[in-house]
């Protein structure tokens, strides 16, 4: 038995490989990767176009003997060219994470194999830990894809060189991005384990995601849904009324999409002057706390999952 993998590790491996075979998961993950590439391309394209125009203009001005202004590309932080990624993560990244979390436990429940797993020498806590570890692995993989795309984008842009601090900020952004997707993955996992039916298990986290992404920003910052999918207009100052004042206090700490966007804007240097998160809790702290709460719910739902009645009611 020496060197044999632990049952918990087997759950991690099996769950991850099952989920990756799921067509829905594969499609959503592919869509996420494509959108991440598009966001990088948009940033690269805008920057390189401005740079090319500047170089042409500079050559013309120089030949005309006129003074050459500084390159506008260098006036803004190069990190900001990744700003579209924060929108795609909040939309498709979070949705992908929900589906991954849901399927991790949903596949066992749908297959009806819980009794056969339940009679193996495997504690309920090992089963729960295995599922959560599988989720963490898959979300880290999604985050790593986004990270590789971001790093590659900066490496291929000749006009841009990141400082050590900016590389650290980029790493921080990728960490926050992974954390944000992890929250939704844990919510998907918790709902997948706790719900009586497969439909409810998916509907509850998706409704929560819609609420956090499109409804709460309206209440905390008077932000219409179309503005919420733009990285700059999503960072709005709420109207100076008592309603928005109290909405920020009450709903600010749970407005996770807002927290993610403000954390991203801070890390990628595109937060406009004079604009701050409406919540009294710093955005990154909000995300860390939300991860803890979502993990606690997922753990509770998984360890309480009945191995005799865990099959979905159809």
């Amino acid at each position, binding site marked *: 038995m020496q060197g044999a993998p632990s*049952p918990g590790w087997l759950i991690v491996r099996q769950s991850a490989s*099952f989920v990756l075979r799921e067509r829905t998961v594969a499609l959503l993950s592919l869509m996420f990767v494509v959108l991440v590439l598009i966001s990088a391309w948009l940033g690269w394209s805008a920057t390189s176009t401005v740079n090319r125009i500047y170089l042409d203009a500079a050559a013309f001005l120089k030949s005309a003997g006129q003074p050459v202004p500084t390159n506008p590309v260098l006036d803004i932080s190069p990190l900001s060219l990744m700003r579209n990624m924060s929108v795609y993560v909040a939309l498709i990244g979070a949705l992908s994470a929900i589906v991954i979390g849901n399927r991790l436990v949903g596949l066992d429940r749908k297959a009806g194999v819980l*009794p*056969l797993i339940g009679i193996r*020498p495997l504690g309920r806590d090992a089963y729960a830990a295995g599922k959560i570890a599988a989720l963490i692995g898959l979300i880290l993989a999604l985050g790593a894809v986004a990270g590789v795309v971001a790093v590659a984008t900066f490496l291929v842009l000749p006009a841009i060189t990141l400082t050590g601090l900016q590389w650290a900020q980029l790493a921080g952004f990728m960490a926050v991005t992974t954390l944000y997707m992890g929250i939704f993955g844990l919510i998907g996992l918790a709902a997948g384990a706790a719900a009586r039916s497969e439909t409810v298990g998916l509907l509850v986290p998706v409704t929560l995601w819609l609420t956090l992404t499109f409804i709460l920003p309206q209440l905390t910052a008077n932000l219409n849904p179309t503005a919420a999918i733009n990285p700059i207009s999503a960072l709005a100052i709420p109207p100076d009324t008592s309603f928005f004042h109290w909405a920020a206090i009450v709903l600010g700490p749970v407005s996770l999409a807002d927290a993610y966007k403000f954390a991203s804007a801070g890390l990628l240097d595109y937060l406009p002057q004079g604009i701050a998160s409406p919540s009294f809790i710093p955005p990154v702290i909000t995300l860390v706390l939300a991860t803890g709460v979502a993990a606690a719910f997922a753990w509770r739902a998984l360890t309480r999952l009945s*191995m005799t009645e865990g099959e979905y009611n159809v």
Partner: protein
Amino acid sequence: MSEPMIRLNRLTQSFDGVTVVDALSMDIEQGEIFGFLGHNGAGKTTTIQMLTTLARPASGTATVAGYDICNEPLEVRRRIGYVPENVRLYDTLTAAENLVFFARLSGVDAPARRVREVLELLDCTYLADKRVGGFSKGMRQRVGLAQAILHGPAVLFLDEPTSGLDPMGIKMLRDLVMRLNTEFGMTIFMNTHLISEIAKTCTSIAVLSHGKLVYHDRIEAVTARYGDDAALEELYLSLTPVGRLAEVA
């Protein structure tokens, strides 16, 4: 005298205030094929769920292979196999892939080799590379039996193993159970409501009615007293509510 393989001591289960298994006490010796009879809803499956550690009893205790089901569930699970009434597997995987997964979870060394051995033992190697999704009830039952014996358990729990099988399937399963008992010394705990199966297979029987144990004896004693299958059926009916209703009518 050695300790029995399965010992139930006032084992009780209740759901929402309704007692479904009521202070069940009995011993099942090593090497027995035990038939657990009872009407639908008598509490047979609930009893198996408690003995296999899938559900915790409301009160009472039980030991399986010498280990307490509440305090030492992992030790119990290392020594048992379980075939549910409806065997459910990962439909998108082949039989061999399903079995390798369960073998690994049971801590079996060289799981692929062991899966081949078990499929050969059950005479169903032809199922190995087929996806489970297209399997008939009988095929599933065979793979279900395979997953239950991969790790060579001391006790095998079968919940209505012949339910939904055709006569050929029933005979095949009966032969397999007998073989596992005689060749490998497995103690078999079998829930059933087929009296003919009890007479042909079991070494001892018990009858459960509304969660209460109403009869428990060795099969020789039963057949000596009641004779053939028809008499056994009469015994069963006299102990269950259906039989009592018939008497009243």
